[in-house]
């Protein structure tokens, strides 16, 4: 038993995941800059008219006042910093935002500072709301996220022997964590992904640039397919049992846009 009053703290956060709790409460997985992933309850958040509810939807960037708990904290106040409206009103952008949020969640740990991951996600959701090239953004995001969390794929030299790679076509092994030289290529039974010289150049460019510099980068069809396969394989090698929201992203990706449906329940007559 402790006699001290529960500690209050305030933090910025992005809501990464939530589930229902009790009659009208919500359980939240939050990404915060100072303490990484935090789990918190929001009382009454599912009731219409709740002061908290509307702010605590998925992918919302919020400022929170929280009461410290042992494992579960509880949200006492919430204010929206950015709801990324452009992301949540377009199913294509939404599917990519959820994918980015899921991989951010799954490479982060509870209660450990993650300012770089937090900033990366907030900036990327902001860009996602308006960018003309959402797929380039997702690829850049995955590469940057894995780099800052210690899972950087080796793109400079051979991942196996460290030899310099000749400017030529090579292969990528997710199992060995990067590109392989011709000599190491045949050593092992792992799945090898083709990486043409063009693909390697684009990957290196994505890895060393900030998103605005690569936003208008034109990437050829074959390079796009190779990069997609390489980054997916690398991400899935890092994230146990794969990224759940990838299926939705893939399903949505090639649908034509039909525009919004008028709001309001109105009778015709």
């Amino acid at each position: 038993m402790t006699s001290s009053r529960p500690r209050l703290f305030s933090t910025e956060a992005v809501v990464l995941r939530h589930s229902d709790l009790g009659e009208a409460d919500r359980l939240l997985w939050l990404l915060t800059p100072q303490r990484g992933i935090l789990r918190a309850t929001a009382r009454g958040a599912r009731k219409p008219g709740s002061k908290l509810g509307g702010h605590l939807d998925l992918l919302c960037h919020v400022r929170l006042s929280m009461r410290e708990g042992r494992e579960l904290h509880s949200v006492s106040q919430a204010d929206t910093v950015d709801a990324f409206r452009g992301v949540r009103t377009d199913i294509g952008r939404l599917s990519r935002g959820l994918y980015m949020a899921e991989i951010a969640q799954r490479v982060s740990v509870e209660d450990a500072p993650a300012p770089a991951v937090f900033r990366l996600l907030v900036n990327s959701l902001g860009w996602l709301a308006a960018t003309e090239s959402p797929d380039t953004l997702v690829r850049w995001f995955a590469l940057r996220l894995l780099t800052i969390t210690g899972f950087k794929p080796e793109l400079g030299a051979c991942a196996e022997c460290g030899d310099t790679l000749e400017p030529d076509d090579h292969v990528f092994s997710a199992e060995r964590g990067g590109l392989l030289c011709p000599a190491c290529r045949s050593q092992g039974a792992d799945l090898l992904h083709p990486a043409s010289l063009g693909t390697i150049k684009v990957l290196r460019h994505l890895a060393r640039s900030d998103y605005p510099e690569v936003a208008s980068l034109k990437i050829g069809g074959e390079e796009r397919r190779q990069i997609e396969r390489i980054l997916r394989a690398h991400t899935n090698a890092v994230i146990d049992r794969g990224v759940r929201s990838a299926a939705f992203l893939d399903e949505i990706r090639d649908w034509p846009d039909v525009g919004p449906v008028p709001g309001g329940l109105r009778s015709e007559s």
Partner: protein
Amino acid sequence: MNSNFTPSAAAPVARLIEAFNRLPGVGPKSAQRLTYYMIRMPREEAEALAEAVISVKDRIVLCSRCLNITEEPVCHVCTNERRDRTRICVVEEPLDVFAIERTRAYDGLYHVLHGAISPVNGIGAEQLKIRELLDRLRDESVKELILATNPNLEGEATSMYLQRLIAPLGIKMTRLARGLSSGADLEYADEMTLVNALEGRSEVMIDGETPAG
């Protein structure tokens, strides 16, 4: 396994606590409280409760048309000749049908999806009753589809998904107006709610009547 309850509790007690604990929204504390309440319950009451649980399992089925829960093969809304068969209101859960029915403001039919798309939790369109909805749209003479999923990201994702899927069929689609809830303070409203409320604003009529759509 949850070990929060007293390990010394008699086996039937522990079993009931565990059964309650598995229910949505019931934590270990509430499970204990419910169990000890039932120990003190008169036998007839306990029997009535057990019987009610069993009859829900034995008698309740999904309506073969709208997939709402019902005791008949086809529910009373779907069989009611006076309901407007040209409209289907799509909701996430059976409870949403009850909520809309309580208003008595809607006389069309329903379709219950039994969930919303939730990619992060691995719930995709194929786990919802969407195929059944498409079958109805092909067979029935539906002219308007009202998308009444929850006004949150997953509900919106589900609505947008249905819009894209159904648009080629040329059926008119509408959505519930989203905005401020009655009794809420404007200052506490979040950005999305305010934007939606602004977009869905209606003309103020001098005589207090609401304008026709």
